[in-house]
């Protein structure tokens, strides 16, 4: 009773002091500003405005995407639920007016009226400098360029002021798509060179703090960890002039508050909310909630195949029969994901990825397989996950732990903080773990090359090596480059089948990207990078 009195007195105090702020919230100038301004709230913000920078984080990609142009971009098509979805196979010019693909090169004609934010014209020199920069700075950008066989500055040739040719090192189907990802953005070379130094040849320190591009938006204010403000570039030629004049992007760490801001109508868009919130918001219908599957992405349970007990395929199959798939879909994801399990027995393998495997939860079969493998009494192991995604990973691991306990397998849960997780992945010593992989380039062989190939990239988290698998993956890549459709299809089906019989990792589901927005916001587009594209959005 006393406590309530106290709370009342405190609330009275708070209310009294909060009221004077009210009238200022509804002045008419502000109402105008609000209608042309998009307010986005998310958990984290960028640490660098340039994707070529050292350790630029994922929110930084969103800035780069909206503030820089690339030579080419993707066309849109209608995706699941009628939401515009990028078309993997169709390209359009962004800075390029026109482009011609020959046998061993591609030639781009630049738009003559394209200008950088400071008014300097975009020339072939800038394009060459920017692409040179992407393949030379090292780290993620250089790695991403190499995924499309773009590795050497000599590949980028200036023909004249407005024409650039990109030579192919070898035939690779991924070269053109790789020129449309975020990394090969075109940077204002003169401006950046002026601000570069002996030690920092590519001017990374300068572009870290400000955008030097020709894109539809430019950053006018950035307070790290707090907010990013971008304003429209009125002279943009990369596409139709965007409708939103200004975007204010605020970091709100508390998920509950992000939801409250949306439901009160103060924020326009938010992502990174717990699945339960998305599910409830979907159900009550006050907001638009878009849920789309990650392209080329899977959450899976991985097993280290180099060490007992998981070096035994029977044990891996037993685990595949013991995973609580349906429970995970319901209790962890609230249905927001595509199941990657339980395909009908007679379903033929498709030339597609991701596609479901044929296992279902069946404890009797799991027990039988485990005793066949000589582990009738189970064993002890550890299941690890990345704490950065604890919202999904933690309940998921608890469900797996419960389920495996029925087989006598005692699992300890190991929660690895973000910085640790990468280290652990690189060490490749975790026996059992869950993780997500999703590729920007949406091709099965791209996924398999990183996750299953014997060259043992960091994503081959299981340390899986199989000569047969390597042959199929390499075969599919070659067939794709030369256009041999029959061989390509045979190889893709081959490696999918092999992945599901050898079973070094067990796919669980294809995750969804969820975005909640006010009803008056339109123009959301799904992109391979899963961040927002402000250019197509409109309010009211």
């Amino acid at each position, binding site marked *: 009773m006393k406590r309530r009195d106290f709370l009342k007195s405190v609330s009275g105090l708070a209310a009294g002091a909060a009221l004077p702020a009210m009238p200022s919230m509804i002045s008419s100038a502000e109402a105008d500003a609000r209608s042309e301004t998009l307010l986005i709230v998310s958990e984290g913000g960028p640490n*660098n405005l340039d994707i070529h920078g050292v350790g630029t984080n994922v929110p930084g990609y969103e800035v780069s995407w909206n503030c820089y142009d690339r030579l080419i971009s993707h066309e849109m098509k209608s995706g699941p639920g009628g939401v515009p979805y990028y078309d993997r196979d169709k390209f359009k010019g962004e800075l390029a007016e026109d482009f011609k693909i020959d046998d061993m090169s591609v030639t781009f004609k630049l738009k003559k009226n394209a200008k950088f934010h400071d008014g300097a014209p975009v020339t072939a020199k800038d394009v060459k400098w920017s692409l040179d920069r992407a393949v030379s700075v090292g780290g993620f950008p250089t790695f991403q360029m190499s995924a499309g066989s773009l590795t050497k500055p000599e590949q980028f040739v200036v023909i004249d002021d407005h024409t650039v040719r990109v030579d192919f090192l070898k035939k690779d189907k991924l070269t053109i798509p790789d020129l449309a990802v975020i990394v090969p953005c075109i940077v204002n070379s003169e401006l950046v060179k002026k601000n570069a130094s002996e030690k920092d040849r590519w001017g990374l320190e300068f572009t870290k*703090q400000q955008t030097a591009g020709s894109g539809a938006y430019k950053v006018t204010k950035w307070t790290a960890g707090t907010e990013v403000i971008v304003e429209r570039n009125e002279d943009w030629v990369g596409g139709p002039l965007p409708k939103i004049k200004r975007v204010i992007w605020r970091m709100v760490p508390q998920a509950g508050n992000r939801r409250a801001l949306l439901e009160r109508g103060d924020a326009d868009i938010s992502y990174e909310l717990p699945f339960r919130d998305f599910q409830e918001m979907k159900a009550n219908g006050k907001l638009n909630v878009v849920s789309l599957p990650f392209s080329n992405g899977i959450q899976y349970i991985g097993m280290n195949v180099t060490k007992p007990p998981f070096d035994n395929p029977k044990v891996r199959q037993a685990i595949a029969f013991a995973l609580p798939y349906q429970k995970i879909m319901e209790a962890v994801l609230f249905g927001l994901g595509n199941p990657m399990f339980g395909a009908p027995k007679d379903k033929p393998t498709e030339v597609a990825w991701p596609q479901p495997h044929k296992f279902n939860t069946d404890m009797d079969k799991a027990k039988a397989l485990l005793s066949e493998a000589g582990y009738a009494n189970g064993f002890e192991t550890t299941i690890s996950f990345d704490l950065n995604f604890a919202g999904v990973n933690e309940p998921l691991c608890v469900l797996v732990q419960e389920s495996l306990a029925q087989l006598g397998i005692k699992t300890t849960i190991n929660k690895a903080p973000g910085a640790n997780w990468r280290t652990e992945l690189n060490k490749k010593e975790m026996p059992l773990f869950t993780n997500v992989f999703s590729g920007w380039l949406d091709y099965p062989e791209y996924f398999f090359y990183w996750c299953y190939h014997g060259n043992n990239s960091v994503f081959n988290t299981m340390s899986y090596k199989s000569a047969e698998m390597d042959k199929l993956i390499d075969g599919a890549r070659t067939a794709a480059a030369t256009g041999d459709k029959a061989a390509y299809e045979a190889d893709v089906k081959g490696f999918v089948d092999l992945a599901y019989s050898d079973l070094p990792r067990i796919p669980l589901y294809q995750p969804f990207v969820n975005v909640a927005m006010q009803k008056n916001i339109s123009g959301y587009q799904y992109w391979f990078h899963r961040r927002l594209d402000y250019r197509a959005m409109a309010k009211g």
Partner: protein
Amino acid sequence: MLTMIGKRLMFAIPSLIGVVIVTFLLTRALPGDPAAYFAGPAATKEAVEQIRKKLGLDRPLIEQFFRYTNDLAHGDFGNSLTTGQPVAAEIRNRLPASAELTLLGLFVSIAIAIPLGVLAATRPGSWIDHLCRVTTTAGVSLPVFFTGLVLVYLFYFRLGWSPAPLGRLDVFYSAPPTVTGFYLIDTLLARDIEAFRSALSQLILPATTLAIFSLAPIARMTRASMLAVLASEFVRTARASGLSPGTVIVTYAFRNAMLPVITTLSMVFSFLLGANVLVEKVFAWPGIGSYAVEALISSDFAPVQGFVLTMAVMYVLLNLVIDILYGVIDPRVRLEG
């Protein structure tokens, strides 16, 4: 007085050197690998090594340490990898945000807790004593993030009285030119009344949250200390001499009871400043606590070192101020100092 201050500052130097060494070693002992983290999810081993080289983490520990102390001597705290900004600038920007919030919270707390404690001590066992006990227990047993969320839910989400919990200002106001870094003062200096209102209304809920949490130690300490003083002989003498109860309590008892309360205040203040991470998270407050925690999670060495060092300096200064205050309140302390 000045010699005393100088002496105290001299004594602080070894502890600061110790702090520098310990934080350096501790951050290096963290299990994470910053190079692997910042190389991004798609990095190859070579990419990780490239990043490691760029960050200077491939050098021997002792060389890293000397480079760090050398930078420190030049006032360079290094760069944060998570936010991409120089640590010194970040701390300079964020410390006022935390300090403004903490000071206001503490002020509200003192305004409630000290009268409550004094009244409880003068009437032990009465309803006001029980009120004091119940409110302090309730305040300290509610976790701050919970109180914060409840306040947001009630006053923002349900009632709509409070502005959106979006940091220090409404999104459509721009920050005042920095003079003190305290928005309440800077907006007034800039004669921007609307921005002042906005800043104040943004502060109320988080400051209340902090105040509720810090009521307990202050009120309890005031009560206990007052009880001890009220039972002492000089108070009995004062009463026997026929002084009015007001004079006895305020002039004689309260001043003498202040010392332990001041000690508690300094502890509460430094504790709040470092530990209001949760409040900062709930209210999207751009303060120093959330900054340090985020850096810690991503094995970002420079901000963690900078944060600990700043805190150490603050503790030293705070202790000095408290010692000086002791002298002001109790002349006997001055003689011993």
